[in-house]
């Protein structure tokens, strides 16, 4: 708890007596706010205290206490640590006021909390299910919700090999017996109607036409879920007036696997490889955030060499992710694979390093609580040196030379898909999306973690908030990452790579922790609650790919349909993380 937040906290409690109460539970931080006064308090916090950035909204189900809790993480866009607010509500009729009027960025996250926890957000403009389908029965993240083939609450399952024999749940629970339908639901006669409410939400604007009285008709086009440039099974429902977008709704969840529920079944360490599967292009970053959150709870700090290795891997991940993003952005703009293939070539070299240290090119599973899994094998250090001092800077300059001043790229990118700084903050945009809009907010600087304050690097900022700047900022960030890498490679000490003994089963004291890192795609946060058991009580991922989609509509409206693809590409999402 930092001094600044302490100041705010003291003022808060005096300004809102009875309403704001300090969270006194052991290992917890922040405040518990009366749900009815939430909007009032938060508006004050935003306007008077400068907490203008809502990072994370999530629900927690305290089944034993019969309570639901909605946890908010607020930040200042000028930097500093988090202010954690909580609103409690009874489980049966869970309802809290929606924060969308104050922070539009809460829209998708509140929908997710409604979908998974059944917490109703009063005043939410469009409270529909988001990750599950419309006909889904129940709210799966509730602790008393059990899936088909349910076995036990937590791994490792004791029942798997009762007598040394493999035992499968599905043999006992044959299909159909375990499927739970809502009352009055018959799968044979069911007609999907989920899209009706979706289309209704699109709000067709009937324009008066031009002066000559030529009315135009609007068309609803489904971009996706099977579409080559939605980067996976993602769907944009677009209302078009000619080729111009008048409304757009993102539809997601096609790849949903309830990552968080599975995460709560897993032990703490079992989640480490599981985080790889979120943003499968930058697994090292995913590991980083989760390791930070759990280390906060455990109170351990990795040794020096491990810190350096972590930074090196995280920055390599950023580079590989950004050149991938640039390559595919160009693909979305219609360059037939050529820039992409040149960019990906460099990524392969980085993946070679990952393979050498972790044994896997993409699903790295490299971080451990209090260290990393393995030290650098022989010869890899030389490879890294060559890469960061010679090859990558050269190749980045080459990409820059070929692409940056391309007339078509400029005309397609400049002034298209604009996100103003105010909008970017309000809509909780993060990462390159936020910084391309002129907000110099980089968690590595704003709220430093690991050893980032040791390195000399600049926060890359661009000021126009259009597609072109989002392309440029990725080049800038790659260059800054190379600076960090060069320093890290130069300064890396010898020494142990793991604090204490590596363990399969870690002891995590009760409490809550929010570990956030500046992932390549934006703020990647893990909200972990432990109740002292081997499994996390709550494991929430604040996924940048997911939250960054909130401002998609305001970026797209008024642009051409072809631009929506490029705008989506410039946000750079990975569906594994969006849908979780």
């Amino acid at each position, binding site marked *: 708890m930092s001094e600044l937040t302490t100041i705010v906290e003291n003022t808060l409690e005096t300004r809102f007596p009875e309403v704001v109460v300090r969270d006194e539970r052991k290992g917890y931080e922040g405040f518990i706010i009366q749900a009815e006064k939430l909007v009032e308090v938060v508006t004050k916090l935003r306007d008077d205290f400068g907490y203008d950035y809502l990072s994370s909204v999530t629900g927690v189900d305290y089944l034993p206490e019969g309570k639901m809790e909605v946890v908010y993480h607020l930040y200042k866009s000028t930097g500093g640590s988090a202010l954690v607010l909580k609103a409690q509500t009874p489980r049966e009729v869970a309802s809290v006021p929606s924060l969308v009027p104050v922070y539009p960025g809460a829209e998708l996250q509140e929908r997710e909390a409604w979908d998974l926890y059944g917490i109703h957000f009063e005043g939410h403009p469009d409270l529909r299910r988001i990750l599950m389908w419309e006909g889904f029965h129940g709210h799966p993240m509730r602790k008393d919700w059990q899936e088909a083939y349910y076995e036990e609450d937590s791994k490792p399952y004791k029942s798997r090999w009762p007598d040394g024999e493999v035992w499968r749940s599905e043999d006992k629970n044959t299909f159909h017996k375990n499927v739970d339908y809502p009352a009055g639901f018959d799968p044979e006669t069911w007609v999907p109607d989920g899209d009706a409410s979706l289309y209704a939400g699109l709000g067709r604007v009937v324009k008066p036409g031009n002066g000559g009285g030529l009315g135009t008709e609007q068309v609803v086009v489904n971009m996706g879920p099977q579409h080559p440039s939605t980067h996976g099974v993602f769907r944009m429902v677009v209302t078009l007036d000619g080729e111009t977008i008048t409304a757009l709704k993102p539809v997601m969840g096609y790849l949903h696997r309830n990552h968080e529920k599975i995460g709560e079944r897993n032990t703490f360490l079992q989640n480490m490889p599981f985080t790889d599967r979120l943003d499968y292009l930058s697994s090292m970053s995913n590991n980083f955030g989760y390791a930070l959150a759990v280390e906060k709870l455990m109170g351990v700090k990795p040794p020096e060499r491990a810190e350096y290795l972590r930074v090196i891997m995280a920055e390599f991940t950023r580079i590989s992710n950004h050149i991938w993003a640039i390559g595919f952005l160009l693909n979305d703009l219609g360059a037939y694979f050529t820039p992409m293939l040149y960019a990906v070539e460099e990524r392969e070299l980085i993946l070679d390093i990952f393979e050498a240290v972790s044994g896997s090119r993409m699903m790295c599973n490299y971080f451990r609580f209090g260290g990393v899994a393995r030290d650098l094998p022989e010869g890899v250090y030389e490879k890294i040196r060559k890469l960061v001092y010679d090859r990558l800077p050269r190749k980045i300059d080459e990409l820059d030379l070929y692409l940056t001043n391309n007339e078509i790229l400029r*005309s397609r990118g400049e002034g298209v898909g604009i996100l103003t700084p105010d909008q970017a903050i309000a809509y909780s945009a993060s990462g390159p999306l936020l910084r391309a809009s002129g907000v110099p907010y980089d968690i590595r600087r704003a709220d430093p973690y690991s050893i980032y304050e040791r390195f000399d690097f600049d926060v890359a900022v661009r000021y126009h908030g259009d597609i072109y700047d989002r392309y440029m900022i990725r080049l800038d960030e790659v260059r800054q990452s190379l600076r960090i890498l060069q320093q890290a490679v130069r300064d890396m000490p010898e020494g142990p790579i793991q604090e204490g003994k590596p363990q399969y089963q870690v002891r995590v004291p009760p409490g809550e922790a929010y570990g956030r890192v500046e992932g390549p795609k934006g703020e990647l946060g893990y909200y972990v609650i432990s109740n002292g058991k081997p499994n996390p009580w709550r494991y929430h991922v604040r996924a940048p790919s997911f939250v960054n989609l909130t401002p998609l509509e305001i970026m797209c409206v008024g642009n051409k349909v*072809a631009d929506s693809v490029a705008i989506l590409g410039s946000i750079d999402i990975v569906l594994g993380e969006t849908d979780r």
Partner: protein
Amino acid sequence: MGDPITLIGKWLENLLYSWGLMPGVVSLIMAVIGVVVIASAVLVLDILLVWVERKVVARFQDRLGPNRVGPFGIIQPIADVIKLLIKEDILPIGADKIVYNLAPIMALGTVLLLWAVLPLSSTVYGTNLNVGVLYIVALGAISTLGIIMAGWASNNKYALLGAFRTVAQMVSYEVPLVIALLVPVILARSMGLTDIVEAQSIWFVFIAPIPALIVLITSIAELGRAPFDLIEAESEIVAGFHIEYTGMKFGLFYAGELLHALTVGGIIATLFLGGWRGPGAETYPILGIFYFFIKALFLYWVIMWIKYSLPRIRIDHMLNFNWKFLTPLSLVILIVMAIVDKIVPKTSMLVYSLVMLFVNVVVGWLTLQLLRRNAKSARMRVAEPKPVARPEPSPTAATSQTSSSSS
């Protein structure tokens, strides 16, 4: 000896006469044989083009390309064709069966018809139509029709969108194309392609570089290739008009596109690069075929080069570029060159050409100056640079941050 094709033709004709056939029937048979020979030769070439395209794009993209089937993967297109032939043929629900099936035939057929007027050498050509240039334009119109039919009949929104874009694009780009095509007509005093080639003792590309460039650009747009591939823009409307086509019907579209690219190369080579002309091509016409294909393949390579290096332009940019830039430019250059053609006597070809080239350079230079003037960035400024590029937190915040990082 330099003209085996004419020799074979003569021999065949004599053979037919010796069988006692009527002259009308003989000429009919000869025409049919000619059509069959040219069409099959071109189609065989088309199969090879699949390989060329894949290999060249692979080299552009730092890959190897097909290299498994046969030496250098040269048998690969055969394998592709077999694959396409044995694929399931799908007719989408609600599709218009006849129109749907007719469209791919039209797509490839119109391209084949273009070869009827292309002079492959001084003696080998389908027909010396005196309106050859217009004929090319007319076939462009029919190929548009094929794409519209495909887009409409597929009963698919993407296909329909692709068809809309096709109309917008092809009809617009036809305007500067036709205007620019008039320049070689003025220079050669004929619309027949054979006459135009005959007239090119100096290649027209040296006399009229700007029209040549305009024809190249607009032809790429007519082809629907990058950067004008909006009609099948993969990242936007998936595959555009041929989204629903499978198997060999898709193959026909694909083959048609590749062949069209080569054909456009051939047309531009004929109009601006001297067609079959080259050292010794007059005396040995067989050499002319060789030269013609070298030039056509070179232009085909240029078209590929452009396709695989540039992103796609947006539809409004595409139309603006056409109506606000290409069309005025082509009109200006046509008028200027027509006037110069009247003024400068054609007695000395060299002087005439130099004057024409000079005029082109002047027009080109003026255009560039105008462009430069208008190139003031129309970029919207959404945010003035904030002073906090590297956030120095407020004093209280600074202490909090350093306290957490005492190492």
